[in-house]
């Protein structure tokens, strides 16, 4: 397949449309025709080959175990044989067979219920069967609407066979994939995974595909493939038709060929006539030369950030070092605080988020992968995976949805050996620290030498310079007076000599000094002038943001000073939290009115005259009871109930701090396990129940959504749980509820009671499935818990 480097290659057209012409019914599985109507499939291949295509794609678009079950292997083997036989018989020029993989038909977590590794295994099985006989020349992963699923498929192909892997995605008229990814993000992720060609197929006609094609061309270093539909679908006489005729189709495609497309074909609505016209129109067109793009791209599933233009802000707040609250949250296995920090930094303008969950005594691999998954369900910012544990980094890189920044490697041979292979396999922009076995060099030249070694070693692994960002290391200026300028000199030198992008955590510089933010902000300004591309900073710090914005003005990168003016033109200054209105009243009133932002100051006020436990018993609980009654009597409604619950939660945070200080912690009323059962991913209701239970002093262990019965049983047993709350919102998942209850009984957990809730349940049904209690709503759950404990 070296052909792809040197000439244009033509793919076949639509298989689906041709099968419909041959009489396939809607809903009938095309892959089964490989077994039941092989001559029809072979004929279609032959027609496309006669039209002049170089590659035929096997009729395996939807071939996976979920759809075909036991017939998967025979169907795929037959598909490959048919394509191979047709290709071999075609003559004229070498013909190739591409093993075709389409989407699995399921959405991956967290949007759906399929786990990433499940998807990888699913695709790997099809690739294994399809390539076993050595009859395929490449693997084509196409019509992907979700970058995460594309990643799963590419990894599956690369881990299962050695064939070239091509991947094309489907974009809509806004230039985005179904799950919101841009073409730039697609290129970043797919090239990072090592595909041999990227592109687009389906979704758009040739005219509509121009913009996406242009974006692909801007960023892609590998050859580009384009397989549009024969126009946009229209409904005529109840049938879906694609109106672009072969001549028009071919004219557009020839344009694409002249401007950089290497592999051309057609998708829905295209016929052998379209392909024949395409081949003819492209005769004599020399393939445009491939150019290596040097952009340093980091991506999430949606956003792509390019490092090297305006400064890229990396939010540093998710790091337990020096943060007591974060450490406690991690030890308690509670990601809530981390997720709020992620959302907060996103709101404040961070462009990439650093994620560090390293803490002695916890399983960092498990915690980092879990944190990455959860954070990616809350923000679409790209992440910087930050760990000293190569195993944790590797695991996180694997399941990360996008192309991450990887923090870090350094000059030590064993560290580079441990980390580089994973960066190569999964793709990523790796941060290189200028330290090695000998420590941190004092001179800029010393740091340059380590940086050079990192870049050269990376090259041995096939990692390009554009995917390396060097950290010249910020040390503490109060410890060594010349540290600050030394770092800046090193940074400039490294950037000039090696042509790499640079990153720096600025906060270290001010350690031990008062008003650290002043020093940090000035250092940041100097560093930006010295060539810093990506500062790691606290985006919640006004000082830091001010330094970034003023630099934008002074460096001329803020066009018309628009950003600066937008931020500061309002004479009243930056938006601060609204000052609490003193007339809001007592803590009781604030809870009843659900004024969440006023909870903390009001709680502080109460603490002046009352003990925390007294406040809970005489203020918070009665207020909650009043709101609960109001809700049940139809005077108050759900949003108010939740606002009051969140107000209590905020007040509790203050009281807990106080209680820790005085050593008088309140023992929980009881411990309750909550979960949304297997196969169900609704969780708003469960979360409302959780907040209310915690308000009333219960400790809640929340296992999340789509939880298998065994996980619930194991946790219940291990923690000696006496009350399990199960949530299910569909008639189909109520069965999982029953299964879970039976598993608990079978495990002999006799002291464990089960309360069930969810829109489809009734008292009747709850009894039938063996539950002990049925809770109509969140307040009912609280009452049941109070009665039980």
């Amino acid at each position: 397949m070296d052909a792809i480097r040197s000439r244009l290659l033509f793919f076949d057209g639509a298989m689906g449309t041709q099968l419909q012409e041959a009489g396939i019914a809607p809903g009938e599985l095309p892959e089964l025709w490989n077994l039941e109507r092989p001559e029809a499939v072979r004929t279609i291949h032959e027609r496309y080959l006669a039209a002049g295509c170089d590659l035929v794609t096997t009729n395996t678009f939807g071939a996976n175990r979920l759809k075909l079950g036991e017939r998967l292997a025979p169907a795929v083997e037959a598909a490959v044989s048919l394509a191979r036989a047709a290709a071999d018989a075609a003559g004229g020029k070498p013909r190739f067979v591409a093993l075709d993989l389409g989407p699995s038909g399921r959405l991956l977590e967290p949007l759906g219920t399929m786990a990433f590794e499940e998807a990888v295994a699913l695709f790997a099985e099809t690739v294994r069967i399809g390539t076993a006989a050595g009859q395929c020349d490449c693997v084509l992963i196409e019509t992907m609407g979700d970058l995460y699923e594309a990643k799963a498929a590419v990894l599956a192909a690369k881990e299962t066979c050695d064939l070239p892997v091509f991947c094309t995605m489907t974009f809509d008229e806004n230039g985005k994939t179904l799950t919101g990814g841009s073409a730039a993000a697609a290129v970043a992720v797919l090239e990072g995974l090592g595909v041999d060609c990227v592109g687009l197929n389906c979704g758009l006609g040739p005219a509509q595909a121009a913009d996406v094609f242009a974006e692909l061309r801007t960023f892609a270093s590998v050859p580009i493939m384009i397989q549009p539909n024969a126009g946009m679908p229209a409904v005529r006489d109840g049938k879906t038709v694609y109106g672009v005729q072969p001549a028009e189709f071919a004219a557009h495609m020839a344009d694409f060929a002249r401007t950089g497309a290497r592999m051309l074909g057609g998708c829905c609505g295209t016929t052998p006539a379209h392909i024949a016209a395409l081949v003819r129109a492209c005769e004599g067109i020399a393939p445009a030369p491939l150019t290596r793009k040097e952009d340093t791209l980091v991506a999430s599933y949606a956003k792509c950030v390019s490092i090297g233009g305006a400064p890229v802000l990396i939010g540093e707040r998710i790091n337990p070092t020096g943060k007591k609250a974060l450490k406690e949250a991690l030890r308690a296995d509670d990601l809530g605080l981390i997720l709020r920090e992620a959302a907060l930094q996103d709101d404040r303008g961070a462009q990439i988020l650093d994620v560090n969950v390293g803490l002695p005594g916890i399983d960092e691999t498990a915690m980092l992968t879990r944190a990455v998954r959860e954070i990616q369900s809350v923000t679409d910012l790209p992440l910087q995976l930050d760990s000293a544990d190569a195993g944790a980094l590797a695991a996180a890189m694997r399941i990360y949805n996008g192309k991450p920044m990887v923090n870090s490697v350094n000059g030590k041979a064993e560290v580079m050996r441990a980390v580089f292979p994973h960066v190569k396999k999964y793709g990523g922009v790796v941060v290189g620290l200028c330290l090695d076995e000998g420590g941190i060099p004092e001179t800029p030249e010393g740091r340059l030498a380590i940086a050079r070694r990192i870049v050269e070693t990376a090259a041995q692994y096939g990692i390009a310079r554009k995917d390396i960002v060097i950290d010249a290391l910020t040390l503490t200026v109060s410890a060594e007076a010349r540290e600050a300028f030394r770092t800046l000199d090193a940074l400039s030198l490294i950037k000039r000599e090696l042509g790499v992008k640079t990153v720096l955590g600025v906060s270290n510089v001010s350690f031990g000094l008062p008003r650290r933010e002043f020093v940090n902000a000035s250092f940041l300004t100097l560093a930006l002038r010295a060539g810093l591309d990506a500062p790691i900073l606290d985006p919640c710090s006004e000082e830091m943001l001010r330094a970034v914005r003023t630099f934008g003005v002074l460096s001329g990168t803020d066009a018309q000073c628009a950003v600066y003016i937008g931020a500061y033109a309002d004479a009243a200054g930056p938006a601060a939290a609204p000052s609490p209105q003193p007339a809001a009243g007592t803590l009781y009133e604030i809870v009843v009115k659900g004024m969440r932002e006023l909870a903390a100051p009001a709680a502080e006020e109460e603490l002046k005259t009352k003990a925390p436990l007294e406040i809970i018993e005489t203020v918070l609980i009665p207020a909650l009871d009043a709101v609960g009654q109001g809700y049940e009597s139809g005077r108050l409604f759900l949003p108010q109930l939740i606002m009051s619950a969140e107000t209590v939660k905020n007040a509790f945070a203050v009281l807990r701090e106080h209680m820790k200080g005085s050593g008088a912690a309140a023992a929980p009323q009881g411990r309750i396990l909550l979960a949304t059962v297997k196969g169900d991913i609704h969780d708003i209701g469960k979360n409302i129940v959780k907040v209310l239970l915690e308000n009333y002093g219960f400790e809640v262990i929340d296992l999340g959504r789509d939880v298998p019965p065994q996980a619930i049983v194991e946790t219940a047993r291990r923690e000696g749980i006496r009350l399990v709350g199960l949530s299910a919102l569909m008639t189909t998942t109520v069965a999982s509820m029953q299964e879970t209850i039976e598993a608990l009984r079978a495990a002999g957990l006799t002291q464990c009671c089960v309360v069930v809730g969810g829109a489809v349940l009734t008292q009747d049904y709850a009894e039938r499935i063996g539950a002990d209690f049925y809770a109509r709503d969140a307040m009912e759950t609280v009452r049941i818990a109070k009665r039980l404990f």
Partner: protein
Amino acid sequence: MQLDRAETLRYLGYGTHAPDERTDALIAECAKELEALPTVRHVERSFSDLVWSPEGVSVGGASFASRRLAETLSGCGQAVVLCATLGAAADRLRMRYIRTDLTKAAVMDAAQSAYIEQVCDAVCADLRQRYAPQGLSPTPRFSPGYGDFALSEQPMLLALANAPRRIGLTCSETFLLTPQKSVTAIIGLTRGTPTCGGERCAVCEHRELCRFRRT
């Protein structure tokens, strides 16, 4: 398309009560976010090969064992399969608020339920307009989960409209539509007035116990 606030309030359990100021403000915020959603999509496909049987009706060669569906479609020469979704972006909004602002999450959940129904209503209104010249009018839409139309029919309905490929709408092994704020439905096209007996709440078998009834 503007979010229907009254419907949002209904899904929040307000019935016809007026919301307090802050809930109102939250609804307004959600409305703005929904109206800017980039991933609202739908696909429709019409079929004229309807075959009735004692168990139900087959549309486009796919048999559905639902007598209520058969009733809804009785007298129709054509049926339209409609699949619509607010897309992944809507799910991500909810996921974010569940973690960062639970009150807003509850309001957003209700708002999204209202919005996807509006999207479907708009498609039905469009069908009405498009088929009026032929003397045809659409029946109320009928979805898996209504009456005896089983949820397990989702995959077939999605396949009929080619929804996974066209709009990225799939379903889990428990027949949960993903992305979640989505609707699949069959709509009959009939000459004369639809005979199935009226809209929504009036014909729903849960109307006695439901907290979210329109009246």
